[in-house]
Protein backbone atom coordinates (compact mmCIF):
# COMPACT_ATOMS: atom_id res chain seq x y z
CA UNK A 1 0.00 0.00 0.00
CA UNK A 2 2.65 2.41 1.12
CA UNK A 3 4.53 1.53 -1.98
CA UNK A 4 1.54 2.36 -4.21
CA UNK A 5 1.11 5.66 -2.38
CA UNK A 6 4.72 6.51 -2.97
CA UNK A 7 4.33 5.71 -6.61
CA UNK A 8 1.24 7.86 -7.06
CA UNK A 9 2.98 10.78 -5.33
CA UNK A 10 5.83 10.39 -7.69
CA UNK A 11 3.46 10.38 -10.66
CA UNK A 12 1.72 13.47 -9.32
CA UNK A 13 5.05 15.17 -8.91
CA UNK A 14 6.02 14.28 -12.43
CA UNK A 15 2.66 15.58 -13.65
CA UNK A 16 3.28 18.90 -11.91
CA UNK A 17 6.74 19.17 -13.46
CA UNK A 18 5.25 18.44 -16.87
CA UNK A 19 2.57 21.12 -16.41
CA UNK A 20 5.17 23.67 -15.36
CA UNK A 21 7.36 22.60 -18.29
CA UNK A 22 4.57 23.06 -20.79
CA UNK A 23 3.69 26.42 -19.27
CA UNK A 24 7.31 27.56 -19.47
CA UNK A 25 7.63 26.34 -23.05
CA UNK A 26 4.41 28.11 -23.97
CA UNK A 27 5.61 31.27 -22.28
CA UNK A 28 8.94 31.12 -24.09
CA UNK A 29 7.18 30.45 -27.36
CA UNK A 30 4.92 33.45 -26.87
CA UNK A 31 7.87 35.66 -25.98
CA UNK A 32 10.03 34.41 -28.82
CA UNK A 33 7.35 34.61 -31.44
CA UNK A 34 6.18 38.06 -30.47
CA UNK A 35 7.57 41.13 -32.11
CA UNK A 36 6.76 43.39 -29.17
CA UNK A 37 5.83 47.00 -29.79
CA UNK A 38 6.99 48.35 -33.08
CA UNK A 39 7.62 51.97 -34.01
CA UNK A 40 4.83 53.68 -35.95
CA UNK A 41 5.12 53.98 -39.73
CA UNK A 42 7.35 56.84 -40.82
CA UNK A 43 4.94 57.99 -43.52
CA UNK A 44 1.27 57.76 -44.30
CA UNK A 45 1.41 55.85 -47.56
CA UNK A 46 -2.18 56.74 -48.43
CA UNK A 47 -1.34 60.44 -48.47
CA UNK A 48 1.94 60.27 -50.39
CA UNK A 49 2.11 62.31 -53.58
CA UNK A 50 3.86 60.81 -56.60
CA UNK A 51 6.99 62.88 -56.03
CA UNK A 52 7.26 61.90 -52.39
CA UNK A 53 6.72 58.28 -53.37
CA UNK A 54 9.49 58.61 -55.89
CA UNK A 55 11.93 59.86 -53.25
CA UNK A 56 10.95 57.02 -50.96
CA UNK A 57 11.22 54.52 -53.81
CA UNK A 58 14.78 55.58 -54.61
CA UNK A 59 15.78 55.39 -50.98
CA UNK A 60 14.16 51.95 -50.82
CA UNK A 61 16.34 50.68 -53.61
CA UNK A 62 19.41 51.88 -51.71
CA UNK A 63 18.23 50.04 -48.60
CA UNK A 64 17.64 46.93 -50.70
CA UNK A 65 21.19 47.17 -52.09
CA UNK A 66 22.88 47.97 -48.79
CA UNK A 67 20.87 45.20 -47.09
CA UNK A 68 22.11 42.75 -49.73
CA UNK A 69 18.68 41.16 -49.89
CA UNK A 70 19.21 39.86 -53.42
CA UNK A 71 22.19 37.69 -52.48
CA UNK A 72 19.82 35.25 -50.77
CA UNK A 73 16.52 36.07 -52.44
CA UNK A 74 17.55 35.67 -56.10
CA UNK A 75 16.77 32.68 -58.22
CA UNK A 76 19.93 30.70 -58.94
CA UNK A 77 18.22 29.43 -62.11
CA UNK A 78 16.92 32.60 -63.70
CA UNK A 79 18.76 35.29 -61.76
CA UNK A 80 15.45 37.02 -60.95
CA UNK A 81 16.42 39.12 -57.96
CA UNK A 82 13.36 38.63 -55.74
CA UNK A 83 12.30 35.11 -56.69
CA UNK A 84 14.15 33.30 -53.93
CA UNK A 85 15.84 29.93 -54.03
CA UNK A 86 19.46 30.56 -53.04
CA UNK A 87 20.55 27.68 -50.79
CA UNK A 88 22.19 28.43 -47.49
CA UNK A 89 23.99 25.45 -46.03
CA UNK A 90 24.14 25.40 -42.22
CA UNK A 91 25.36 22.65 -39.92
CA UNK A 92 21.67 22.01 -39.12
CA UNK A 93 20.52 21.61 -42.72
CA UNK A 94 19.85 23.68 -45.81
CA UNK A 95 17.50 26.64 -46.12
CA UNK A 96 16.44 28.48 -49.26
CA UNK A 97 15.92 32.21 -49.67
CA UNK A 98 12.22 32.94 -50.07
CA UNK A 99 10.26 34.77 -52.72
CA UNK A 100 10.13 38.43 -51.66
CA UNK A 101 8.55 39.75 -54.83
CA UNK A 102 5.09 41.30 -54.53
CA UNK A 103 3.45 38.08 -55.75
CA UNK A 104 0.30 37.68 -53.67
CA UNK A 105 0.45 33.91 -53.87
CA UNK A 106 4.15 33.14 -53.40
CA UNK A 107 5.74 36.35 -52.25
CA UNK A 108 4.98 39.20 -49.91
CA UNK A 109 2.33 40.95 -51.99
CA UNK A 110 -0.12 40.94 -49.08
CA UNK A 111 2.26 42.37 -46.54
CA UNK A 112 1.79 45.82 -45.05
CA UNK A 113 4.70 48.12 -44.23
CA UNK A 114 4.23 47.04 -40.59
CA UNK A 115 4.54 43.40 -41.64
CA UNK A 116 7.79 44.08 -43.45
CA UNK A 117 9.28 45.94 -40.50
CA UNK A 118 8.30 43.09 -38.16
CA UNK A 119 9.84 40.46 -40.39
CA UNK A 120 13.05 42.38 -41.00
CA UNK A 121 13.66 43.71 -37.49
CA UNK A 122 12.22 40.92 -35.36
CA UNK A 123 12.08 37.81 -37.56
CA UNK A 124 8.32 37.41 -37.25
CA UNK A 125 6.30 37.13 -40.46
CA UNK A 126 2.52 37.62 -40.62
CA UNK A 127 0.57 34.91 -38.82
CA UNK A 128 3.19 34.80 -36.06
CA UNK A 129 5.41 32.75 -38.30
CA UNK A 130 8.91 32.70 -36.87
CA UNK A 131 11.65 33.03 -39.46
CA UNK A 132 14.88 31.11 -39.25
CA UNK A 133 17.76 33.35 -38.17
CA UNK A 134 19.42 32.68 -41.53
CA UNK A 135 17.35 35.76 -42.31
CA UNK A 136 19.63 38.11 -40.39
CA UNK A 137 17.09 39.89 -38.18
CA UNK A 138 19.59 39.64 -35.34
CA UNK A 139 21.56 42.20 -37.38
CA UNK A 140 18.68 44.03 -39.04
CA UNK A 141 17.11 44.71 -35.64
CA UNK A 142 18.47 48.25 -35.71
CA UNK A 143 16.98 49.16 -39.08
CA UNK A 144 15.13 52.46 -38.94
CA UNK A 145 11.43 52.43 -39.56
CA UNK A 146 12.04 55.00 -42.29
CA UNK A 147 14.43 52.69 -44.14
CA UNK A 148 12.09 49.73 -43.71
CA UNK A 149 9.19 51.76 -45.10
CA UNK A 150 11.29 52.91 -48.04
CA UNK A 151 12.22 49.29 -48.71
CA UNK A 152 8.55 48.34 -48.64
CA UNK A 153 7.70 51.14 -51.07
CA UNK A 154 10.36 49.84 -53.45
CA UNK A 155 9.57 46.15 -53.10
CA UNK A 156 5.87 46.63 -53.71
CA UNK A 157 6.54 48.32 -57.04
CA UNK A 158 8.68 45.46 -58.41
CA UNK A 159 7.43 42.86 -60.83
CA UNK A 160 5.83 39.93 -59.02
CA UNK A 161 7.58 36.63 -59.70
CA UNK A 162 5.18 33.70 -59.60
CA UNK A 163 7.57 31.09 -58.28
CA UNK A 164 6.78 28.93 -55.26
CA UNK A 165 9.13 28.83 -52.29
CA UNK A 166 11.37 25.87 -51.82
CA UNK A 167 10.92 24.22 -48.42
CA UNK A 168 14.02 23.98 -46.24
CA UNK A 169 15.76 20.70 -45.57
CA UNK A 170 16.54 21.06 -41.89
CA UNK A 171 17.40 18.09 -39.73
CA UNK A 172 15.33 17.16 -36.70
CA UNK A 173 14.79 18.98 -34.31
CA UNK A 174 15.69 22.11 -36.26
CA UNK A 175 12.88 21.44 -38.72
CA UNK A 176 10.36 22.33 -35.98
CA UNK A 177 9.92 25.95 -36.88
CA UNK A 178 8.16 27.14 -33.67
CA UNK A 179 11.27 26.05 -31.78
CA UNK A 180 13.06 29.03 -33.33
CA UNK A 181 11.02 31.12 -30.90
CA UNK A 182 13.15 29.64 -28.12
CA UNK A 183 16.27 30.65 -29.99
CA UNK A 184 14.84 34.15 -30.19
CA UNK A 185 14.34 34.35 -26.42
CA UNK A 186 18.04 33.75 -25.90
CA UNK A 187 19.66 35.37 -28.92
CA UNK A 188 17.43 37.97 -30.50
CA UNK A 189 18.20 41.56 -29.63
CA UNK A 190 15.18 43.82 -29.16
CA UNK A 191 14.26 45.76 -32.30
CA UNK A 192 15.65 49.24 -31.81
CA UNK A 193 16.08 51.97 -34.40
CA UNK A 194 19.65 53.18 -34.82
CA UNK A 195 20.36 56.85 -35.31
CA UNK A 196 22.86 56.88 -38.12
CA UNK A 197 22.65 60.56 -38.87
CA UNK A 198 25.14 61.66 -36.21
CA UNK A 199 28.34 61.37 -38.23
CA UNK A 200 30.14 59.31 -40.86
CA UNK A 201 31.25 56.68 -38.36
CA UNK A 202 27.68 56.11 -37.24
CA UNK A 203 26.53 55.83 -40.83
CA UNK A 204 29.34 53.34 -41.45
CA UNK A 205 28.42 51.30 -38.43
CA UNK A 206 24.78 51.19 -39.50
CA UNK A 207 25.79 50.00 -42.97
CA UNK A 208 28.25 47.41 -41.68
CA UNK A 209 26.34 46.05 -38.71
CA UNK A 210 22.71 46.54 -39.58
CA UNK A 211 22.06 46.64 -43.32
CA UNK A 212 25.25 44.91 -44.47
CA UNK A 213 24.99 42.37 -41.62
CA UNK A 214 28.71 41.70 -42.12
CA UNK A 215 29.13 40.19 -38.68
CA UNK A 216 26.78 37.33 -39.56
CA UNK A 217 29.57 35.72 -41.59
CA UNK A 218 32.65 37.45 -40.23
CA UNK A 219 32.08 36.71 -36.52
CA UNK A 220 32.54 33.29 -34.99
CA UNK A 221 29.34 31.58 -33.87
CA UNK A 222 28.62 30.16 -30.47
CA UNK A 223 28.84 26.39 -30.12
CA UNK A 224 25.51 25.92 -28.38
CA UNK A 225 22.99 28.05 -30.26
CA UNK A 226 25.01 28.96 -33.34
CA UNK A 227 24.29 32.64 -32.74
CA UNK A 228 26.81 35.36 -33.59
CA UNK A 229 29.37 35.41 -30.83
CA UNK A 230 29.18 39.10 -29.97
CA UNK A 231 32.19 38.81 -27.68
CA UNK A 232 34.27 37.98 -30.77
CA UNK A 233 32.73 40.57 -33.04
CA UNK A 234 34.22 40.52 -36.59
CA UNK A 235 37.07 38.24 -35.55
CA UNK A 236 36.67 35.95 -38.58
CA UNK A 237 34.83 32.68 -39.09
CA UNK A 238 34.81 29.61 -41.30
CA UNK A 239 31.34 29.35 -42.76
CA UNK A 240 29.94 27.46 -45.74
CA UNK A 241 33.30 25.97 -46.53
CA UNK A 242 35.32 29.16 -46.65
CA UNK A 243 36.95 31.59 -44.25
CA UNK A 244 35.31 34.98 -43.84
CA UNK A 245 38.34 36.87 -42.55
CA UNK A 246 38.64 39.02 -39.45
CA UNK A 247 37.59 42.63 -40.06
CA UNK A 248 38.71 44.31 -36.87
CA UNK A 249 40.85 47.41 -37.48
CA UNK A 250 43.89 45.55 -36.13
CA UNK A 251 43.39 42.55 -38.39
CA UNK A 252 42.72 44.74 -41.44
CA UNK A 253 45.87 46.80 -40.76
CA UNK A 254 47.90 43.65 -40.31
CA UNK A 255 46.83 42.43 -43.76
CA UNK A 256 47.66 45.75 -45.42
CA UNK A 257 44.21 47.27 -45.88
CA UNK A 258 43.69 51.00 -46.11
CA UNK A 259 40.45 52.93 -46.27
CA UNK A 260 40.94 53.64 -49.96
CA UNK A 261 41.65 50.00 -50.77
CA UNK A 262 38.55 48.92 -48.89
CA UNK A 263 36.47 51.36 -50.93
CA UNK A 264 38.07 50.06 -54.14
CA UNK A 265 37.34 46.49 -53.05
CA UNK A 266 33.68 47.22 -52.25
CA UNK A 267 33.18 49.15 -55.50
CA UNK A 268 34.97 46.95 -58.02
CA UNK A 269 35.52 43.64 -56.21
CA UNK A 270 39.26 43.99 -56.67
CA UNK A 271 42.13 45.59 -54.80
CA UNK A 272 45.81 44.82 -54.25
CA UNK A 273 44.71 42.62 -51.34
CA UNK A 274 42.71 40.32 -53.59
CA UNK A 275 39.47 39.69 -55.43
CA UNK A 276 36.01 38.89 -54.06
CA UNK A 277 35.31 35.18 -54.17
CA UNK A 278 32.80 32.72 -52.72
CA UNK A 279 29.80 34.43 -51.09
CA UNK A 280 31.45 37.84 -51.33
CA UNK A 281 31.18 37.62 -55.11
CA UNK A 282 27.41 37.88 -54.84
CA UNK A 283 27.72 40.65 -52.24
CA UNK A 284 29.62 42.58 -54.91
CA UNK A 285 27.12 41.78 -57.66
CA UNK A 286 23.97 42.61 -55.74
CA UNK A 287 25.12 45.04 -53.12
CA UNK A 288 28.38 46.94 -52.78
CA UNK A 289 28.96 47.65 -56.49
CA UNK A 290 25.63 49.53 -56.53
CA UNK A 291 26.17 51.55 -53.37
CA UNK A 292 26.99 55.27 -53.41
CA UNK A 293 30.66 56.08 -52.91
CA UNK A 294 29.86 58.06 -49.75
CA UNK A 295 28.34 54.97 -48.16
CA UNK A 296 31.33 52.85 -49.10
CA UNK A 297 33.61 55.48 -47.59
CA UNK A 298 31.53 55.45 -44.42
CA UNK A 299 31.84 51.66 -44.18
CA UNK A 300 35.59 51.84 -44.66
CA UNK A 301 35.82 54.62 -42.06
CA UNK A 302 33.90 52.50 -39.56
CA UNK A 303 35.84 49.31 -40.24
CA UNK A 304 39.16 51.10 -39.78
CA UNK A 305 37.75 53.23 -36.96
CA UNK A 306 39.27 56.20 -38.76
CA UNK A 307 42.70 55.04 -37.68
CA UNK A 308 45.77 55.55 -39.77
CA UNK A 309 46.42 52.29 -41.53
CA UNK A 310 49.99 51.26 -42.38
CA UNK A 311 48.98 50.11 -45.88
CA UNK A 312 50.50 47.39 -48.00
CA UNK A 313 53.40 45.81 -46.23
CA UNK A 314 54.28 42.44 -47.74
CA UNK A 315 55.26 39.95 -45.08
CA UNK A 316 58.91 39.02 -44.79
CA UNK A 317 59.31 35.57 -46.35
CA UNK A 318 60.45 32.72 -44.12
CA UNK A 319 64.10 31.95 -44.65
CA UNK A 320 63.42 28.28 -45.34
CA UNK A 321 60.59 27.59 -47.73
CA UNK A 322 59.03 24.34 -48.87
CA UNK A 323 61.07 23.51 -51.97
CA UNK A 324 58.58 21.02 -53.43
CA UNK A 325 55.92 23.65 -53.00
CA UNK A 326 58.11 26.22 -54.70
CA UNK A 327 58.51 23.93 -57.73
CA UNK A 328 54.76 23.42 -57.88
CA UNK A 329 54.16 27.17 -57.64
CA UNK A 330 56.65 27.97 -60.41
CA UNK A 331 55.32 25.13 -62.56
CA UNK A 332 51.57 25.67 -62.15
CA UNK A 333 50.90 29.16 -60.82
CA UNK A 334 53.72 31.52 -61.76
CA UNK A 335 52.70 31.65 -65.44
CA UNK A 336 49.81 33.91 -64.38
CA UNK A 337 50.61 35.05 -60.84
CA UNK A 338 54.30 35.76 -61.53
CA UNK A 339 57.39 34.11 -60.09
CA UNK A 340 57.63 36.83 -57.46
CA UNK A 341 53.85 36.79 -56.98
CA UNK A 342 53.51 40.02 -58.90
CA UNK A 343 50.34 39.00 -60.84
CA UNK A 344 48.99 40.55 -64.04
CA UNK A 345 46.95 43.72 -63.85
CA UNK A 346 43.23 43.20 -64.52
CA UNK A 347 43.53 39.47 -65.15
CA UNK A 348 45.23 37.59 -62.33
CA UNK A 349 45.76 38.85 -58.81
CA UNK A 350 49.18 39.39 -57.27
CA UNK A 351 50.09 36.96 -54.51
CA UNK A 352 52.67 39.17 -52.85
CA UNK A 353 50.07 41.57 -51.42
CA UNK A 354 47.12 39.17 -51.45
CA UNK A 355 45.69 38.46 -48.04
CA UNK A 356 44.61 34.85 -48.64
CA UNK A 357 48.01 33.40 -47.75
CA UNK A 358 47.99 35.49 -44.56
CA UNK A 359 44.84 33.99 -43.05
CA UNK A 360 45.20 31.81 -39.97
CA UNK A 361 43.55 28.95 -41.89
CA UNK A 362 44.61 27.73 -45.36
CA UNK A 363 41.06 26.70 -46.31
CA UNK A 364 40.49 29.48 -48.87
CA UNK A 365 43.85 28.90 -50.52
CA UNK A 366 43.11 25.19 -50.80
CA UNK A 367 39.62 25.81 -52.13
CA UNK A 368 40.65 28.32 -54.78
CA UNK A 369 43.50 26.12 -55.96
CA UNK A 370 41.33 23.00 -56.11
CA UNK A 371 38.25 24.54 -57.68
CA UNK A 372 39.64 27.50 -59.59
CA UNK A 373 37.65 30.67 -60.13
CA UNK A 374 35.43 31.24 -63.12
CA UNK A 375 36.16 34.13 -65.44
CA UNK A 376 34.13 37.04 -64.13
CA UNK A 377 33.17 40.55 -64.91
CA UNK A 378 33.56 42.25 -61.57
CA UNK A 379 32.19 45.78 -61.47
CA UNK A 380 32.96 49.21 -62.90
CA UNK A 381 35.13 47.82 -65.69
CA UNK A 382 37.18 45.36 -63.65
CA UNK A 383 37.33 41.74 -64.67
CA UNK A 384 39.30 38.60 -63.89
CA UNK A 385 40.20 35.80 -66.26
CA UNK A 386 39.49 32.15 -65.53
CA UNK A 387 41.67 30.47 -62.99
CA UNK A 388 41.60 26.73 -63.68
CA UNK A 389 41.06 24.31 -60.81
CA UNK A 390 43.91 21.95 -59.99
CA UNK A 391 42.01 19.25 -58.12
CA UNK A 392 42.96 16.72 -60.79
CA UNK A 393 46.66 17.61 -60.69
CA UNK A 394 47.40 17.91 -56.99
CA UNK A 395 47.07 15.27 -54.30
CA UNK A 396 46.75 16.24 -50.63
CA UNK A 397 50.49 15.99 -50.10
CA UNK A 398 51.30 18.26 -53.03
CA UNK A 399 48.56 20.67 -52.01
CA UNK A 400 50.10 20.88 -48.56
CA UNK A 401 53.51 21.62 -50.09
CA UNK A 402 52.08 24.31 -52.33
CA UNK A 403 50.03 26.12 -49.68
CA UNK A 404 52.94 25.90 -47.27
CA UNK A 405 55.21 27.56 -49.81
CA UNK A 406 52.69 30.33 -50.45
CA UNK A 407 52.01 30.92 -46.76
CA UNK A 408 55.72 31.00 -45.99
CA UNK A 409 56.56 33.29 -48.87
CA UNK A 410 53.72 35.81 -48.73
CA UNK A 411 51.66 35.06 -45.67
CA UNK A 412 54.01 35.41 -42.74
CA UNK A 413 52.74 31.97 -41.77
CA UNK A 414 54.63 28.81 -40.89
CA UNK A 415 54.70 25.91 -43.33
CA UNK A 416 53.00 23.47 -41.02
CA UNK A 417 49.97 22.39 -43.04
CA UNK A 418 49.95 18.61 -43.42
CA UNK A 419 48.32 16.37 -46.01
CA UNK A 420 45.76 15.28 -43.44
CA UNK A 421 44.97 18.94 -42.64
CA UNK A 422 44.32 19.37 -46.35
CA UNK A 423 42.02 16.33 -46.37
CA UNK A 424 40.13 17.78 -43.40
CA UNK A 425 39.66 21.14 -45.11
CA UNK A 426 38.52 19.42 -48.27
CA UNK A 427 35.87 17.56 -46.24
CA UNK A 428 34.67 20.86 -44.75
CA UNK A 429 34.47 22.36 -48.23
CA UNK A 430 32.62 19.41 -49.72
CA UNK A 431 30.20 19.35 -46.80
CA UNK A 432 29.18 22.92 -47.57
CA UNK A 433 27.89 22.07 -51.04
Amino acid at each position, binding site marked *: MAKANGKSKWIKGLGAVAVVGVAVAAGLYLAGSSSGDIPPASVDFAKLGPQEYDVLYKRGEQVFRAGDCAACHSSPQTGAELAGGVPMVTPMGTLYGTNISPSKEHGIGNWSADDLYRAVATGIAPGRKVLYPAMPYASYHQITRGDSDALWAWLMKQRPVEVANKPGEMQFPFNIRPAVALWNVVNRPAAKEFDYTVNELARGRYLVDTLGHCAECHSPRTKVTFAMDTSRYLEGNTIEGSYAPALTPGALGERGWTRDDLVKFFRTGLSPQGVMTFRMASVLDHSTSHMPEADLRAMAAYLTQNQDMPGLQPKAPQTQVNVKGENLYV*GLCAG*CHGVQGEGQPHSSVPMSTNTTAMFPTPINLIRVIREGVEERDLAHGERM*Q*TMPGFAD*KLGDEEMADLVNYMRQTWGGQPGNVTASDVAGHVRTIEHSK
Partner: protein
Amino acid sequence: MQDRIQFSATINRKKIGPVDVPKDLMMIEFLQEYAGMNGTRLGCGQGVCRACTIIVDEPGKGSITVPACVTGVTWLNGKTIRTVEGIASVDDKGVVHPSPVQKAFLEHYSFQCGYCTPGFVNSATVLMEKLEKNPVPADDVEKAIEQQLEPHVCRCTGYVRYYSAVRDVILKTPGLTTGKRTKEVANNG
Protein backbone atom coordinates in the same frame (compact mmCIF):
# COMPACT_ATOMS: atom_id res chain seq x y z
CA MET B 1 65.23 30.43 -55.21
CA GLN B 2 67.90 28.54 -57.07
CA ASP B 3 67.90 29.96 -60.61
CA ARG B 4 68.36 27.02 -62.92
CA ILE B 5 67.27 23.42 -63.16
CA GLN B 6 68.25 20.41 -65.19
CA PHE B 7 65.19 19.66 -67.27
CA SER B 8 64.49 16.36 -68.96
CA ALA B 9 61.33 14.92 -70.44
CA THR B 10 60.12 12.45 -72.98
CA ILE B 11 58.71 14.54 -75.79
CA ASN B 12 56.98 12.85 -78.71
CA ARG B 13 58.49 9.52 -77.68
CA LYS B 14 62.06 10.90 -77.62
CA LYS B 15 64.05 11.46 -74.45
CA ILE B 16 65.29 15.02 -74.21
CA GLY B 17 67.72 16.44 -71.69
CA PRO B 18 68.95 16.99 -69.15
CA VAL B 19 69.06 20.60 -70.38
CA ASP B 20 70.22 23.42 -68.14
CA VAL B 21 67.36 25.96 -68.14
CA PRO B 22 66.14 28.86 -66.02
CA LYS B 23 63.87 27.53 -63.34
CA ASP B 24 61.03 29.90 -64.20
CA LEU B 25 60.95 28.89 -67.87
CA MET B 26 57.49 28.21 -69.29
CA MET B 27 57.12 25.10 -71.41
CA ILE B 28 56.23 26.92 -74.61
CA GLU B 29 59.55 28.69 -74.50
CA PHE B 30 61.39 25.47 -73.89
CA LEU B 31 59.71 23.88 -76.90
CA GLN B 32 60.38 26.76 -79.23
CA GLU B 33 63.75 28.07 -78.06
CA TYR B 34 65.48 24.99 -76.73
CA ALA B 35 63.89 22.05 -78.54
CA GLY B 36 63.34 23.77 -81.89
CA MET B 37 59.69 22.71 -82.05
CA ASN B 38 57.61 25.62 -83.20
CA GLY B 39 54.33 23.83 -83.80
CA THR B 40 53.00 24.90 -80.41
CA ARG B 41 51.56 28.40 -80.74
CA LEU B 42 51.68 31.27 -78.32
CA GLY B 43 48.37 33.14 -78.35
CA CYS B 44 47.32 34.89 -75.18
CA GLY B 45 50.21 33.72 -73.02
CA GLN B 46 47.76 33.63 -70.14
CA GLY B 47 46.08 30.24 -70.18
CA VAL B 48 42.94 31.61 -71.80
CA CYS B 49 42.95 30.74 -75.52
CA ARG B 50 44.44 27.23 -75.52
CA ALA B 51 46.39 27.72 -78.74
CA CYS B 52 49.41 26.37 -76.86
CA THR B 53 47.77 23.15 -75.63
CA ILE B 54 50.11 20.19 -75.18
CA ILE B 55 49.39 16.68 -73.88
CA VAL B 56 50.82 15.20 -70.70
CA ASP B 57 50.67 11.42 -70.44
CA GLU B 58 50.64 10.26 -66.85
CA PRO B 59 51.04 6.53 -66.43
CA GLY B 60 47.99 5.18 -64.66
CA LYS B 61 46.19 8.51 -64.81
CA GLY B 62 45.72 8.85 -68.55
CA SER B 63 46.29 11.91 -70.66
CA ILE B 64 45.49 15.50 -69.88
CA THR B 65 45.95 18.73 -71.76
CA VAL B 66 47.77 21.69 -70.29
CA PRO B 67 48.44 25.18 -71.64
CA ALA B 68 52.18 25.30 -72.34
CA CYS B 69 52.27 29.09 -71.99
CA VAL B 70 51.60 29.04 -68.26
CA THR B 71 52.88 25.62 -67.31
CA GLY B 72 56.46 25.77 -66.12
CA VAL B 73 59.25 23.30 -66.69
CA THR B 74 59.45 22.58 -62.96
CA TRP B 75 56.10 20.84 -63.15
CA LEU B 76 56.80 19.02 -66.39
CA ASN B 77 60.26 17.83 -65.42
CA GLY B 78 60.53 14.06 -65.98
CA LYS B 79 57.08 13.79 -67.54
CA THR B 80 55.95 12.30 -70.84
CA ILE B 81 54.67 14.91 -73.24
CA ARG B 82 53.13 15.08 -76.70
CA THR B 83 53.06 18.19 -78.87
CA VAL B 84 51.38 18.69 -82.23
CA GLU B 85 54.57 17.46 -83.90
CA GLY B 86 54.00 14.04 -82.39
CA ILE B 87 50.43 13.44 -83.53
CA ALA B 88 50.90 12.34 -87.15
CA SER B 89 52.76 9.11 -87.82
CA VAL B 90 55.70 8.75 -90.16
CA ASP B 91 56.27 5.45 -92.00
CA ASP B 92 59.59 3.78 -92.81
CA LYS B 93 59.85 5.73 -96.03
CA GLY B 94 59.48 8.98 -94.19
CA VAL B 95 55.96 9.62 -95.43
CA VAL B 96 53.81 11.54 -92.97
CA HIS B 97 50.32 10.18 -92.26
CA PRO B 98 48.02 12.64 -90.54
CA SER B 99 46.09 11.24 -87.60
CA PRO B 100 42.32 10.71 -87.96
CA VAL B 101 41.68 14.02 -86.19
CA GLN B 102 44.06 15.86 -88.48
CA LYS B 103 42.46 14.23 -91.53
CA ALA B 104 39.00 15.21 -90.33
CA PHE B 105 40.09 18.84 -89.93
CA LEU B 106 41.47 18.82 -93.45
CA GLU B 107 38.37 17.17 -94.91
CA HIS B 108 36.07 19.65 -93.20
CA TYR B 109 38.19 22.70 -94.01
CA SER B 110 37.99 23.34 -90.30
CA PHE B 111 40.71 25.92 -89.95
CA GLN B 112 41.29 29.17 -91.73
CA CYS B 113 44.53 30.82 -90.59
CA GLY B 114 45.43 27.70 -88.63
CA TYR B 115 46.83 29.52 -85.63
CA CYS B 116 44.60 27.72 -83.14
CA THR B 117 44.77 24.37 -84.92
CA PRO B 118 47.58 22.66 -82.96
CA GLY B 119 45.62 23.22 -79.78
CA PHE B 120 42.43 21.83 -81.29
CA VAL B 121 44.31 18.81 -82.67
CA ASN B 122 45.77 17.95 -79.28
CA SER B 123 42.56 18.45 -77.37
CA ALA B 124 40.50 16.44 -79.83
CA THR B 125 43.11 13.68 -79.75
CA VAL B 126 42.84 13.45 -75.97
CA LEU B 127 39.05 13.34 -76.29
CA MET B 128 39.28 10.38 -78.69
CA GLU B 129 41.55 8.57 -76.24
CA LYS B 130 39.20 9.26 -73.35
CA LEU B 131 36.28 7.88 -75.33
CA GLU B 132 38.22 4.74 -76.16
CA LYS B 133 38.25 3.99 -72.44
CA ASN B 134 34.82 5.43 -71.63
CA PRO B 135 32.54 5.47 -74.67
CA VAL B 136 29.50 7.79 -74.53
CA PRO B 137 26.05 7.19 -76.03
CA ALA B 138 26.16 8.23 -79.68
CA ASP B 139 23.57 10.92 -79.04
CA ASP B 140 25.78 12.58 -76.39
CA VAL B 141 28.79 13.16 -78.62
CA GLU B 142 28.12 16.89 -78.93
CA LYS B 143 28.13 17.28 -75.16
CA ALA B 144 31.45 15.48 -74.85
CA ILE B 145 32.99 17.63 -77.58
CA GLU B 146 31.75 20.81 -76.00
CA GLN B 147 33.16 19.84 -72.63
CA GLN B 148 36.57 19.19 -74.12
CA LEU B 149 36.88 21.96 -76.71
CA GLU B 150 34.96 24.73 -74.97
CA PRO B 151 38.07 26.53 -73.66
CA HIS B 152 39.64 26.76 -77.12
CA VAL B 153 39.43 30.11 -78.84
CA CYS B 154 39.58 30.41 -82.62
CA ARG B 155 40.05 33.97 -83.81
CA CYS B 156 38.74 33.01 -87.23
CA THR B 157 35.64 31.61 -85.50
CA GLY B 158 35.93 28.21 -87.14
CA TYR B 159 34.09 26.51 -84.31
CA VAL B 160 31.27 24.99 -86.35
CA ARG B 161 33.60 23.14 -88.68
CA TYR B 162 35.96 22.11 -85.92
CA TYR B 163 33.10 20.68 -83.93
CA SER B 164 31.51 18.86 -86.86
CA ALA B 165 34.86 17.41 -87.88
CA VAL B 166 35.37 16.03 -84.39
CA ARG B 167 31.81 14.71 -84.28
CA ASP B 168 32.32 12.95 -87.58
CA VAL B 169 35.57 11.30 -86.67
CA ILE B 170 34.23 10.14 -83.32
CA LEU B 171 31.06 8.66 -84.83
CA LYS B 172 33.05 6.96 -87.58
CA THR B 173 35.57 5.37 -85.22
CA PRO B 174 34.28 2.06 -83.82
CA GLY B 175 34.29 1.73 -80.05
CA LEU B 176 34.05 5.41 -79.07
CA THR B 177 30.27 5.50 -78.77
CA THR B 178 27.53 3.18 -77.68
CA GLY B 179 24.00 2.74 -79.02
CA LYS B 180 22.55 4.15 -82.19
CA ARG B 181 22.59 7.75 -83.17
CA THR B 182 19.04 9.12 -83.35
CA LYS B 183 19.87 12.81 -83.67
CA GLU B 184 19.83 14.33 -87.14
CA VAL B 185 22.32 17.12 -87.74
CA ALA B 186 22.53 19.51 -90.61
CA ASN B 187 25.60 19.11 -92.76
CA ASN B 188 27.26 22.35 -91.84
CA GLY B 189 30.75 21.59 -92.96
